[in-house]
């Protein structure tokens, strides 16, 4: 890879980026490491496709959630059970 680095931060190789890719996508790294990986991905033809793949996978996973068919009915049912338990509406 070639890169013009304007920041004074660590350089990461592809193996290090791949090992931390999920942590990067989950934003579980330090700000410095997030920046270093973002800069690496911006210029690396090998790592960027895998990053795109994993990101597309997480997006698809997030969008696959099964919605509740009637959330209003569930809320009413829970509220009714709580009132029977002694909760007062305030």
């Amino acid at each position, binding site marked *: 890879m070639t890169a013009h680095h304007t920041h004074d931060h660590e350089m990461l190789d592809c193996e290090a980026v791949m*090992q931390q890719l999920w942590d990067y996508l989950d934003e579980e790294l330090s700000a410095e490491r997030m920046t270093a990986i973002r800069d690496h991905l911006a210029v690396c033809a090998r790592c960027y496709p895998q990053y795109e793949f994993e990101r597309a996978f997480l997006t698809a996973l997030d969008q696959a959630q099964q919605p509740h068919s009637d959330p209003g009915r569930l809320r009413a049912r*829970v509220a009714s059970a709580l009132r029977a338990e002694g909760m007062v509406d305030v």
Partner: protein
Amino acid sequence: MTDDSAAKRERDRHFQQEAMRCLPDVARFALSLTRDESDADDLVQDTYLRAYRAWHQFEPGSECRAWLFTICRNQFLNSRVRAEREVALDAPELEARQAAVVHDSVRNGPLEDTFLRVDLAPAIQRALAALPEVLRTAVILVDLQDLKYDDAARILGVPVGTVRSRLFRGRRLLQESLLVHAQDAGFSTPPSDASRGSDR
């Protein structure tokens, strides 16, 4: 109004303010665990009744949603015989290599586009349901409920490193399932012998 009734009224007000606003998230979490809406509704109701009874144990200012998820998951596990064996977890380095194998197997195919173009929700839900519970719950908490690793670790009662391992392994198994789904649907080609190997 007596001091006791005023205190109870304040307690109930606090419960309704904090806990009830989390109901949509708890409902989604319960549905992810049970995969059956009727069972999920029972689980949500049980969760809220237990939370109400134990509300004095909730620490004001802490994450109410995470507290409710903990109760919900414990209820879910208690309601079932734990038939699933614990899953042996691989080393992080091996996880990274195996993830790369999955990616390599599809990088020349259109699965990445398939994620974006095709409604994979039914296939993902099936694949999620097939995961061992410990992996499934980690994926649900982080990927579907957007919790940070340390919040998920508190709910599961395990170290953050264990959440990370379960999460990565769960995602890899999901990707493998979706790869098979894509191949069956004609969207991708089977992995080559070279990329199938584990000695990369």
